[in-house]
């Protein structure tokens, strides 16, 4: 029948207490689960961990004792485990692959055309256009009435401001120039924050615009490109 031995009556009577005790145990654990979410003082990660653990304990309790697997032949357990293992594996993979889609809200590459101004407070590494040449400030200073070369270093190339805004969370941002005459490469690994807004300056060989660049943004399970 179910693999029971000679005296089912005595066996079943013994099991009554097992069932009752298990029941009380399950009730107690469920009580703990409910209390733990009311008491908000615990960290969310540990609450989830505890809920996960209690679920597994209750699951195992019902399957092993109430569903008799403990006292039955092992084949029953194997049949059930096949389904359970494949379900867990498959759906763990699917949930992992479900991920937010990063979106490139803004991406701009613009030439810096700030002309040098008198009486202006400059910071080190600011770029200015003086005449037709670009200079970079050597250190923080307040500019005088006329342009003083001692504060400025002549640079070769055209500075550009690169700004971008990414929403949806990304773990890798790569920007490169599509024009081989005008090389540029930037790679950063943000912290997985929901929104990233950054601007950086880059010295390029010639003038370029947004159309000459490509930004590629990647999250764990998606990637997207702009231009």
């Amino acid at each position, binding site marked *: *029948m*179910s*693999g*029971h*031995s000679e005296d*089912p*009556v005595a*066996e*079943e*009577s013994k*099991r*009554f207490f097992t*069932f*009752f005790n298990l*029941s009380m145990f*399950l*009730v107690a654990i*469920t009580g703990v*689960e*409910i209390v733990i*979410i009311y008491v908000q003082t615990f960290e*969310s990660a540990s*609450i*989830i961990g505890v*809920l*996960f653990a*209690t*679920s597994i304990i*209750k*699951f195992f309790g*019902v*399957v092993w004792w*109430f*569903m*008799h697997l403990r006292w*039955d*032949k092992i*084949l*029953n357990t194997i*049949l*059930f*485990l*096949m*389904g*359970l293992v*494949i*379900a*867990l594996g*498959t*759906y763990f993979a*699917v*949930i992992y692959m*479900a*991920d*937010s*889609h990063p979106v490139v809200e803004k991406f701009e590459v613009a030439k810096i055309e700030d002309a040098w101004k008198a009486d202006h407070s400059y910071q080190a590494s600011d770029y200015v256009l003086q005449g037709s040449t670009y200079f970079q400030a050597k250190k923080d200073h307040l500019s005088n009435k006329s342009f003083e070369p001692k504060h400025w270093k002549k640079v070769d190339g055209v500075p550009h401001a690169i700004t971008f805004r990414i929403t949806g969370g990304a773990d890798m941002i790569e920007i490169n120039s599509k024009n081989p005459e005008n090389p540029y490469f930037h790679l950063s690994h943000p912290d997985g924050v929901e929104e990233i807004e950054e601007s950086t300056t880059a010295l390029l060989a010639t003038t370029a615009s947004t159309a000459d660049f490509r930004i590629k943004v990647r999250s764990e399970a998606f990637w997207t490109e702009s231009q």
Partner: protein
Amino acid sequence: MSDASAHALEHHEPVTSTGIPNKKVLMWAFLGSDCMFFGTLISTHLIYRKISATVGGNFLDIRDVFDIELTSFSTFILLASSLFMALAVSAIHKGNLNSTRWMLFGTIVFGSIFLACQVYEFTHFVHAPGNELTLSTYRGEPHVFGSTFYVLTGTHGTHVAIGVFWLLGWLAYSFTGKMSTAHALDVEICGLYWHFVDIVWIIIFPVIYLMEYAM
């Protein structure tokens, strides 16, 4: 290992290659398959919680909708019904028909209370003033939470309802005078189904309800 000829109780069951009755192998294979069934539904819900918490600006904090007291109550009810089921199976194995009837009755009552709580919960959510959660909307604007939540818990509820019907069948049969220990296997199979429905709820309750409070 039972010897087919020795047990008068077992003369209905053919002897099998493994010693496990055919119906039991069938039920365990079915329950393995049902794991994939509920796995799909649960993971659909979790995926949409992860990537569609807000839909078109419609932010859903389900804590405004959920009634954890009610759901906790129904969880305890279902656990209790599981105890009754185990005791019913135990009773029929012992040949105690009266006890079997009462235990079956208890399972049915508690199972029905669970279903009633679910029905109440659903109507309560759909009509919650200011926080209406329907199959396709939340607060009147499109959202996906209702879709996954109602279909998942509704499928579970349907499984419970089928179980209640099955148990009612057994309760009715127990009054015909034809029920005996020869049917212990069949009641046990029904019990396996009922316990499985319980363990699915053991997963659903923390993962769908309680986790929202932990975020």
